[in-house]
């Protein structure tokens, strides 16, 4: 019962955050609502006994990605100018039906699979030590690859984000 309530609360938070993030006009509000949705998901992970992943989700999504998004919003002045109400009707009818169609398909397929109505395995826990050992043994290659990938992404982001020398800009 308690679990159900907690789940419903977290799900409501997540969905509300997500909907708000996609519908609000002010981009900063959108970003903050998205952060709320991410935090709600982290809570759901915790509820699913995935402590480590939950904290990692909190640390990375709320602590890093949300901040990044907010920075980008400010740097692109998205928060100030809103020419002709970004959410114009023309773009709404292009996007929402497709989203709704996909959603309908997904829900239909979930509902069509009776085997999915099942209860969780009891006494599941994922100690950090075991995660660490798996990362260092079975998943060591993916781990190294991810490290390389993140380094490359970091360098790439820095290179892309660097202000270009003035001379190469044609209209300045």
């Amino acid at each position, binding site marked *: 019962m308690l679990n159900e309530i907690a789940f419903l609360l977290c799900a409501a938070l997540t969905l509300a955050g997500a909907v708000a993030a996609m519908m609000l006009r002010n981009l900063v509000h959108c970003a903050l609502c998205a952060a709320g949705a991410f935090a709600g998901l982290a809570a759901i992970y915790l509820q699913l006994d995935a402590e480590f992943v939950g904290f990692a989700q909190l640390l990375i999504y709320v602590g890093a990605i949300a901040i990044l998004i907010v920075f980008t919003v400010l740097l692109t002045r998205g928060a100030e100018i809103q020419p002709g109400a970004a959410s114009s009707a023309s773009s709404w009818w*292009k*996007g929402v039906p*497709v*989203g709704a*169609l*996909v959603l309908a*398909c*997904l829900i*239909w*397929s979930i509902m*069509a699979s009776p085997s999915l109505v099942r209860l969780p395995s009891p006494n599941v826990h994922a100690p950090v030590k075991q995660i660490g050992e798996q990362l260092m043994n079975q998943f060591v290659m993916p781990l190294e690859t991810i490290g390389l990938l993140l380094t490359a992404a970091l360098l790439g982001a820095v290179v892309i984000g660097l202000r270009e020398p003035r001379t190469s800009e044609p209209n300045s």
Partner: protein
Amino acid sequence: MESIIQYLWLIPTAPLLAAGAGALLPRRRRRLSAGLAIGAISISFLLSCAAFWATLHSGRATSNFRWFDFGTTSVQMGWVLDPLGAIMAVMVALVSLLIFIYSLGYMAKDENFTRFFCFLALFAAAMLGLVIANSLLLFFMCWELVGLASYLLIGFWFQKPSAAAAAKKAFIVTRIGDLGFLVGMLWLYAKAGTHLFYDHGQGCLEPAAAGGLVASTAIALLIFCGAVGKSGQIPLHVWLPDAMEGPTPVSALIHAATMVAAGVFLIARVYPLMTPGALQVVTWVGALTAVFAASIAVAQSDIKRILAYSTVSQLGYMMMGLGAGGVAVGMFHLTTHAFFKALLFLGAGSVIHGCHEEQDIRKMGGLRLRLPVTFATYAVGMMALSGVPLFFSGFWSKDAILDALHHWRGSQVPFYLGLLGAFLTAFYMTRQVCRVFLGKPMTVEAEHAHESPPVMTVPLLILAALAVMVGFFGTPAWPWFQAYLDGGSAGFDLSKLMNEHQLPVMLLSTALVAAGIVWSGWIYGRASARPAREADPLEVAQPALFACVQKKFYVDEFYDATVVRLTTAFARFCDWLDRVVLGGLVRAVCWLALALARLDRNVDKSVVNEGFDIGTEAVRGAGQWVSRLQNGQVQRYLRVIGLAFCGLLILLLWGCA
């Protein structure tokens, strides 16, 4: 013995490293470069002494290793330590050390001091490697490296056209001999299947292989060709006098004491291959060279050239000794000659240095007062070279050769030629000393000559002492040297000095030497008082003969007229062939290609291009049509993806249901 053989490779490696380091040093690091070279050669000297000490007690030791394989054969290399190599290594290292030190003073003003020491160290490394090589192939490599170092050092002052020409001449002439050597070496490999000298009974010098050789006389003579080139024997002697264009320490080290002796050493090293027939040739060539060069030396006026011809002549003696008397006789003269000829060259260098780069003996005179140390040591060297009896090393070693020639079964002519050479040697050396040191100064430079610094005179003194002392190791009364090389032991027996075989020869040569000295002294002692421009007394007496001798019997001119002209003509012919015949052929092919290309262009224009134009138009049209799908609107792509996903999902579920 076992322990030293493992470190034998260090002997050439130390100077090689010094040369490598010296090559990388900037020009201004003069002291570092010289210090490196001298330190390295000191290490080599000490190691050589240790190796020598080891050979006193035991025989031969080898250390072989595989260089590379091809197919089933493997090429082996290695080091050998035996009395022959050890005595040579000690001699080379010691003379090199002294000459390196001497060069400190002699080359002090030269701007390329660093380069000089780099080359010297390279030479020493190659020479020492040659001495301890246990493979004819390795020997040949070091041999060529020695030749390279010699080339570099003769042409050290390459700004002088004569030096550059002399370097080229030395390189090319020795190359002719080396060609024979190479052919002989390959032939030997074909026959013996190995280049190792000693390999536990399998080496090419050991009885198992050397005994059964076919055509061994031809091989031996081909190898002797190399020795002829390197040691300046007739007919390849022409490069050695010209090599005196290099700095004097180089002349002393390379073209008197060590490198030119390498030819003799080569014969000594491969002595087991030398058949009686080959030895006969060796003896004859040596005898002719000895007299021929000595007679040329009589009429020269350049102090270093006289010594150069003297060197050629003495090398002839060594060859004679090898041919008639065996390894010990030749090697003994090689060793004594190395010391006193190095001494003479360094003394000559000191004189030249003192007289402000003057080399003409007619412009000197009276230097005994101004260069006392040089004079004293030079006199010792001169007497050693002339073979003044009893106290000087040259006497004992030359006497051993003459004795061997006297008992040679082949012919008595070399013996008399040797005697004639001894007389000539005494004559021209006395002439030189009289001209340079006695009498009165002939020019202002000679009057203002000065003694060289101690860094130059100390090596002179050491070499003078050695020039006297080394001889006592090989007297007939105590033939230690010969016994050492043959692996036996020598007892002291004064009576051998007096036996009826040796005494007459000894007395005869002594008399000839005395005659040479006295006659020459009589002529030039008086002549040295006259002005320099006046003709030589001998020229006055026999103008035609003297002119002929002064022009070195026109050998260079003969070579110019024959070999060089022939080569030039052949080169011209090749040039013509290349320009007219081959060039014409190439031009014809070009024309053909051009014509084909023109044809091709026309075909291309009318047929291929049209076809491709149609094709590309079609492709472009299709591309334009397809590109409408990719308009850059990411959201549209995403929409398509979403719809496609729905479609796939529906299909999937349909299939399941």
